[in-house]
């Protein structure tokens, strides 16, 4: 079974030969693991750890000839980004970021210093803006190449990245955008419709290239609850997501949705409007068993071990117990992908990562025999 077939089988809510595994690991961690296993490449590492990474994501990048300014190149060097990766499109949007004082330590993070739509006061300030030209030469060259290279063995997600909410506040500023949502429907709709049109066109281009589906990445919650009231979400966001997801559904394609945080109130809505796979179904704050019980026949849980608690602070035995519990209750019937629930921070104990994947290799085969 290829990684692609394994993933497609679980997405169809049937049991493949074994649970499909993902690994969201930064380079530093992969290098430590490579040293531990005595291998030279990521491919060798993933093979020895049984990580099949059944999907790859492709996206629109900066156009041919785009050159970063020196500040951005330096920012990338410090934070560990490829200069021409998808993150460079922030530069094109005019969203400015700065690296935190801890630089290249485990706290490698940035914060926003400029939101280009923050000063706008009228809806037409936004609707009249020229957006990024998705037809510019070179935007999809890498996507095209990756699809050709991997489509026989990997499922291909056409990644829309931050789409309506997260892109909206990155452009507008989080507080101004929240204020719009509560006090200024015309501005809210101008922002969201502008971004929706852009996302629909990007999705069409990616699906035309041969992607198996689209993926959307938004962060709708923290560990306690959602950033906005689910009623407000249903008023402004749900109908627009539905329009976007319908584009894929009409072509028989899949929809993948990422959101950190506790988004329990909207899981049913996401299933209703066509989400096939939900990530990460954050284990620290969502009742995964209940979600599996209610939606498990329609929704794939693309999840993993607790990234905030067990992986950094637990013992290898804690890791093993959490994996076994997940396999026992979430894996039956398929609709289940497992690994790290998000990118593991750089300083997680390697012993815990080794235990995670060794346990999955030992007990993750179907038919399940979990102690």
């Amino acid at each position, binding site marked *: 079974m290829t990684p692609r077939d394994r993933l497609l089988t679980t997405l169809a809510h049937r049991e493949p030969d074994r649970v499909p595994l993902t690994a969201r690991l930064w380079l530093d961690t992969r290098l430590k693991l490579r040293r531990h296993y005595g291998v030279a490449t990521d491919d060798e590492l993933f093979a020895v750890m049984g990580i099949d990474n059944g999907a790859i994501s492709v996206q629109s990048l900066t156009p041919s000839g785009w050159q970063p300014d020196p500040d951005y190149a330096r920012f990338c060097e410090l934070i560990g980004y490829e200069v021409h990766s998808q993150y460079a499109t922030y530069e094109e949007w005019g969203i400015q970021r700065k690296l935190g004082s801890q630089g290249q330590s485990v706290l490698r993070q940035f*914060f926003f210093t400029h939101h280009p739509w923050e000063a706008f006061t009228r809806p037409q300030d936004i609707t009249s803006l020229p957006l990024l030209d998705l037809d510019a030469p070179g935007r999809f060259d890498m996507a095209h190449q990756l699809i050709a290279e991997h489509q026989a063995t990997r499922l291909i997600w056409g990644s829309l990245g931050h789409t309506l909410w997260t892109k909206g506040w990155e452009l507008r500023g989080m507080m101004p955008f929240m204020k719009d*949502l*509560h*006090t200024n429907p015309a501005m809210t709709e101008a922002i969201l419709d502008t971004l929706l049109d852009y996302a629909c066109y990007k999705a069409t281009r990616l699906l035309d290239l041969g992607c198996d589906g689209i993926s959307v990445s938004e962060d709708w919650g*923290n560990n306690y609850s959602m950033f906005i009231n*689910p009623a407000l979400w249903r008023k402004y966001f749900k109908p627009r997501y539905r329009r976007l997801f319908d584009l894929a559904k009409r072509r028989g394609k899949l929809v993948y949705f990422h959101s950190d945080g506790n988004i329990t109130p909207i899981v049913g809505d996401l299933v209703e409007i066509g989400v096939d796979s939900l990530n990460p179904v954050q284990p620290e704050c969502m009742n995964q068993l209940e979600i599996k019980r209610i939606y498990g026949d329609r929704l794939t849980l693309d999840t993993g071990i607790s990234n905030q608690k067990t992986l950094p602070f637990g013992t290898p035995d804690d890791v093993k117990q959490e994996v076994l519990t997940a396999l026992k209750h979430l894996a039956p019937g398929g609709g289940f992908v497992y690994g790290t629930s998000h990118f593991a921070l750089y300083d997680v104990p390697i012993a815990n990562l080794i235990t995670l994947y060794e346990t999955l290799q030992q007990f993750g085969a179907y038919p399940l025999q979990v102690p």
Partner: protein
Amino acid sequence: MVSEEDLKQAIVDLDYAGIRDVVQDALASGMDPLTVLNGLKWGLDVVGSLYHNREYFLSELFMAGETMRVALEALMPALTASSHYQAAGTIVMGSIAGDVHDFGKNIAKNLLTASGFTVHDLGVDVPPLQFVEEAVRLQADVIGISAILSSTQPTSAEVVDALAARGLRGAIKVILGGTGVTQRAITEYGVDAAVNDATEGVTIIRGWVQGRA
């Protein structure tokens, strides 16, 4: 005739566009400015309860703070002229070194300002010593440290130690806030309070300051 109940309800309803008129009507009808303030604070308490019950969400907490800010703009001239009014206290706050998250901090800042505190926001990625130096300079009652990451929370101990080194440990309270913060922070880092919810933080700080009055 505007009642305290109306003032409370305007905050609960997040009546950002109408709150100024409600406050001005209350004052015009002869309501004591302190009574107006109490009505508004009552509304903020109800918003906090609604948040705890997951009936309100973060954007509603933020908008309650914004609505309160507009209300206080309308109320302040009358309030400061009142002989009974006293500012609630002074707080120095920021996201600690290594942490660049500021949304929770900003919510807390809004709610504290709305509760009558003078808040000095040092921004994000703030070195521990800067909290102490600014608190001393501004004669603050409280230092508020925001730290969302488990890896940045321990740095709050450096603030506590720096206060102790200056003999100010008892004089300036320290509260740590952040979505992943637990009560363990009190014993592990020596802070006076640890919260994962801005409304709870406001309640604790109000209690401290009232206790001193």
